[in-house]
């Protein structure tokens, strides 16, 4: 890490150190870039700066006591890590989640998805490629969501909201009306955002046809979530491996999975990845409205299922949710003790980092920034 620039034997090639503290690396992430002038020959990611061995921590906590730690898996979308841990434990111990709790999970997760997609991913992508104006607009909306979630569970970032069997607390009085009022506002923000940045000529020129990932490559490298869909693969855990209250809501709304179609260039380019996330925000708005409508049928009361007195399960279970960064899997093995025998988180950011080394040759150095921004990695989710 000491050397910043090393001139190698050949006059042409340079080894550059990018990161770990680089504004475009979204956390602490380092690349060792070999370049020929401005063209990258190879960019090797060096990760692990935020590794805290969450899997080992899991082996030392009780099942319920591990929940706050899961927030730290992905600090921009902590709801999903909460949910995947809760779901893995529920699957292991066969705990039924009450309908109202399922809907509260959908509401909290979809709010979190908008905060992560719109507030952070889209805003910073624009900023990374040079458009500074949209970022505060995005952060403004994220701030609303942070306030809502703070009202809901008391935290703005590390929520610890879900519980094994349900959620910790019901929504406060009057909260629903506030969120719906904001949804009305946010729906008007999205077209404004499209005019401001998505279909902005300069932005499109910058993003289209850059770092194209084909569908076959995306599947082979295990890309998940918006990155996979941008490459034209129609896959979403909420649709095909349905969990929680999603199947009814999706059926009721008749939603289709948004996939990249190469509207501005090639399928699977940076612009497609950007666009898919905007479409997902639109769907989240529809899902939120439907969930608020649906929850009226389940009056206040049960928000957590019946748990045994002692949680000492045996066996193993793998559960996954569709997080903001795609399919987030949690694998838990119980050995009849208070603590799980083994905990494993398989995250979207980790998988997608593996593709950078093979995608980078031939890119401009500046396009690497666009690539990292468009795949929306979060460093703690890679390192855990």
């Amino acid at each position: 890490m000491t050397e910043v620039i090393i001139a190698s034997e050949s006059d042409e090639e340079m080894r550059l150190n990018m990161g770990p503290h680089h504004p475009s690396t979204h956390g602490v992430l380092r690349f060792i870039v070999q370049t020929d002038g401005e063209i990258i020959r190879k960019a090797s990611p060096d990760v692990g700066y935020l590794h805290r061995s969450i899997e080992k921590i899991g082996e030392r906590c009780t099942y319920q006591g591990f929940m706050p730690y899961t927030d730290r898996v992905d600090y921009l979308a902590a709801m999903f890590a909460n949910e995947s841990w809760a779901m893995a434990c529920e699957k292991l111990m066969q705990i039924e989640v009450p309908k109202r709790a399922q809907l509260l999970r959908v509401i909290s997760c979809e709010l979190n998805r908008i905060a992560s997609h719109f507030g952070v991913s889209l805003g910073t992508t624009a900023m990374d490629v040079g458009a500074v104006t949209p970022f505060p607009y995005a952060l403004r909306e994220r701030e609303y969501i942070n306030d809502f979630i703070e009202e809901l569970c008391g935290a703005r970032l590390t929520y610890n909201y879900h519980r094994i069997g349900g959620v910790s607390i019901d929504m406060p009085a009057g909260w629903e009306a506030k969120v719906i009022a904001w949804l009305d506002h946010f729906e008007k923000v999205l077209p404004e955002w499209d005019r401001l940045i998505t279909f902005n000529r300069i932005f499109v020129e910058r993003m289209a046809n850059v770092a194209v990932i084909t569908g076959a490559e995306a599947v082979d490298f295990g890309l998940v979530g918006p990155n996979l869909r941008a490459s034209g693969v129609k896959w979403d855990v909420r649709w095909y491996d349905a969990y929680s209250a999603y199947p009814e809501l999706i059926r009721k709304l008749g939603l289709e999975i948004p996939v990249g179609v190469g509207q501005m260039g090639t399928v699977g380019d940076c612009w497609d990845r950007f666009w898919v996330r905007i479409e997902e925000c639109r769907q989240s708005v529809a899902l939120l409205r439907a969930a608020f409508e649906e929850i009226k049928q389940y009056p206040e009361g049960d928000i957590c299922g019946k748990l045994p007195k002692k949680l000492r399960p045996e066996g193993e279970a793998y559960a996954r949710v569709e997080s903001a960064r795609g399919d987030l899997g949690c694998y838990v093995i119980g050995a009849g003790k208070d603590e799980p025998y083994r905990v494993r988180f398989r995250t979207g950011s980790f998988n997608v980092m593996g593709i950078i080394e093979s995608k980078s040759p031939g890119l401009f150095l500046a396009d690497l920034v666009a690539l990292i921004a468009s795949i929306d990695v979060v460093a703690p989710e890679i390192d855990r």
Partner: protein
Amino acid sequence: MLPKEVFEALQAEHGPDAVFDLHDDAAKDRDPWFQVAPAALVAVCEKLKTDPRFSIDYLECLTGVDYPAKAQIHVVYHLWSYSLLHRVVLKVALPRDEPKVATLSTVWSVANWHERECFDLLGVHFEGHPDLRRLLLPDDWEGYPLRKDYAEKADYHGIPTTRPNPLDLFQIGKAPAKA
């Protein structure tokens, strides 16, 4: 395809020595799994990938689990098929003192980073891996933290791995020592 059918088809193909030990008790096993002999792993996975009956295209998760009581390390592969929407779970049992298994990065590229992580944290050697280096920990780290008997060293290059309790350090809540 049900896990049992996958198991039987694979056993017919590769023999009962290569594919064995099916666990699919509906009451107990949430994700049915079976064992594969380490030597047959790549052949079985190639089959799972290329045969249209299975068409497994996504290695979902690769997990190493340490069982010191059995003197084994298990590597668990969760596989998923996007087209047929079914899951297959394989386990490979390796001797704990010399855990070695062939790499799957030739079958699914996603295995590359997962295997590096498993090597890093559990010390499983994936033979034929193109770039088997530590991934999350520094290159000169000693030991494999996710093994059950891992004992953390007190420091790493002079950086302590524990910190004193601030309550003790700053004598919070204690009467000042008399001079």
